[in-house]
């Protein structure tokens, strides 16, 4: 499209130029001497060759415009010089190559270039008029003509090139954006299918083992029961690991999104406590729940559940007797705190606690089965909600508190 317009107008330029030259030559009044016309025709043919044979063949597209621009300036200069007194009326011819550049652009940009070029040509004619500037000699007037032509040419060409480059960059960025969106969609689909394939055998293992564990499929001996309990705990761990790895993949693929709705935060906390009691039934840790009076809040309940479970799971690893989970209202939202009675956090670890694959020195001594991704995923989830997550040591060295705040809106 772009090349077609450019070529049509370029060819039109040459046709008009040649018609004018022959028109001038065969006018009844002798306007020019014969030599000038022949030199003019020879010059134009030379430039035509220069344009289409030399410049097009030798230079790459990006450099070609600059050489064409120089050739245009020289050609117009020669034309005006040879047309002598009538030269100034033919400046407008240069509108044709300008129009060629402008036609590639959108209407407003093309209009801008054409208007600027017109203003300069009018200005040039005004300056070169002997009547308006009495006392100026022909040399001075010719100097102005060349300077103005040079200025019009360079300015308009540069403007056209810049606008063209900006438009190309914009088109490329739209294309890139579209291809990124397509890639993200493919990744999302891939992750959905991967999770389906990974979860399907796991859900069957977990389900049957839970049935063996709770006696649905018959009574087990003490040793069998212990073995089944281990399998059950580890199948739940496996599901959680797959959850974590899929969350990380979604974060890296940029497809990690929230599915928000208005819900009571206390209901989410209750759900977490319920599932924790089921999976940690052999554990003797007491979980104290302190619930504040909270209105519904716009959150992704599954993701917030994942955060709370992660914080509780970490706290259980440290605590021997009791831990507390507390919900409360803040000035601009709601807060959840998980308070343990463990060994606390090493001062050097605070900075890296919420980084991926980081495992605190104190927790490595107690448990080496985690991936170091839980707190990182929790941070991403809370930040996606527009909230904050942090950790601090409790006063008097009594364990640590992990807390997060969610905005009301």
């Amino acid at each position, binding site marked *: 499209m772009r090349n077609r317009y450019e070529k049509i107008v370029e060819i039109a330029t040459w046709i008009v130029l040649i018609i004018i030259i022959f028109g001038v030559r065969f006018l009844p009044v002798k306007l020019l001497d014969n030599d000038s016309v022949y030199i003019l025709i020879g010059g134009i043919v030379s430039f035509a060759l220069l344009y289409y044979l030399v410049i097009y063949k030798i230079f790459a597209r990006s450099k070609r415009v600059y050489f064409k621009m120089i050739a245009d300036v020289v050609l117009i200069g020669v034309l005006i010089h040879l047309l002598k007194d009538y030269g100034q009326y033919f400046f407008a011819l240069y509108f044709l190559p300008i129009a060629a550049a402008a036609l590639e652009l959108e209407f407003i940009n093309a209009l801008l270039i054409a208007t600027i070029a017109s203003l300069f040509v009018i200005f040039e004619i005004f300056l070169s008029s002997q009547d308006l500037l009495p006392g100026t000699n022909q040399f001075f007037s010719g100097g102005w003509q060349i300077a103005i032509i040079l200025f019009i040419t360079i300015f308009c060409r540069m403007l056209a090139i810049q606008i063209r480059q900006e438009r190309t960059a914009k088109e490329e960025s739209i294309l890139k954006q579209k291809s990124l969106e397509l890639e993200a969609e493919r990744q*999302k689909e891939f992750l959905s299918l991967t999770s389906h394939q990974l979860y399907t055998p796991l*859900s069957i293992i977990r389900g049957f083992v839970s049935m063996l564990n709770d006696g649905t499929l018959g009574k087990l001996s003490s040793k069998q029961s212990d073995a089944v309990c281990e399998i059950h705990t580890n199948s739940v761990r496996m599901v959680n690991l797959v959850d974590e790895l899929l969350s990380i993949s979604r974060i890296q693929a940029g497809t990690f999104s929230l599915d928000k709705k208005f819900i009571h935060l206390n209901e989410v906390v209750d759900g977490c406590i319920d599932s924790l009691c089921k999976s940690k039934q052999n554990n003797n840790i007491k979980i104290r729940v302190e619930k504040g009076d909270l209105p519904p809040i716009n959150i992704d309940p599954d993701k917030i559940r994942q955060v709370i479970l992660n914080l509780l799971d970490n706290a259980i690893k440290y605590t021997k007797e009791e831990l507390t989970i507390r919900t409360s209202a803040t000035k601009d939202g709601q807060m959840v705190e998980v308070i343990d009675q463990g060994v606390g956090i090493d001062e050097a670890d605070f900075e890296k606690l919420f980084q991926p694959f980081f495992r605190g020195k104190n927790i490595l001594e107690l448990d080496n089965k985690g991936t170091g991704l839980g707190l990182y995923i929790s941070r991403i989830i809370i930040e996606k909600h527009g909230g904050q997550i942090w950790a601090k040591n409790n006063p008097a060295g009594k364990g640590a508190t992990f807390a997060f705040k969610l905005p009301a809106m």
Partner: protein
Amino acid sequence: MKVLIIDDEKGILKMYSEYLQTGGIEALQATDGQAGIKIAKEQKPDVIFLDIIMPRYNGLDVLKDLKADPEIKQIPVFLLTNLPAESSGDKAKSLGAAGYLVKAQYEPKMILDIVKSAATYKQNQNPPGEPIK
């Protein structure tokens, strides 16, 4: 009380059916969508659990057909799948599913709890179990 489970994975059918039967619930099974719709029309179960990824007849299309049939459209249908909610939750909601459950997160006991609360749902028309995404 009758529950219909539509799933192409035989292990899943066996697992949930056995657990529901121990809770005194009759579990009907279908390994594909067409058979599922046929059983739903003939047996009129109280609750339907429906998988999404199945050969030939996708679970979401089955849901659409179940909800288009005036005889069975009032039966609560829970999608019970291993596809994450973010991929099909919205579609399921728009098609009239009562809930969206990820199998790996729901042990058979939790499914039994949902079936029990579905009985309450039938009486007072409040959506049971896990709220839909």
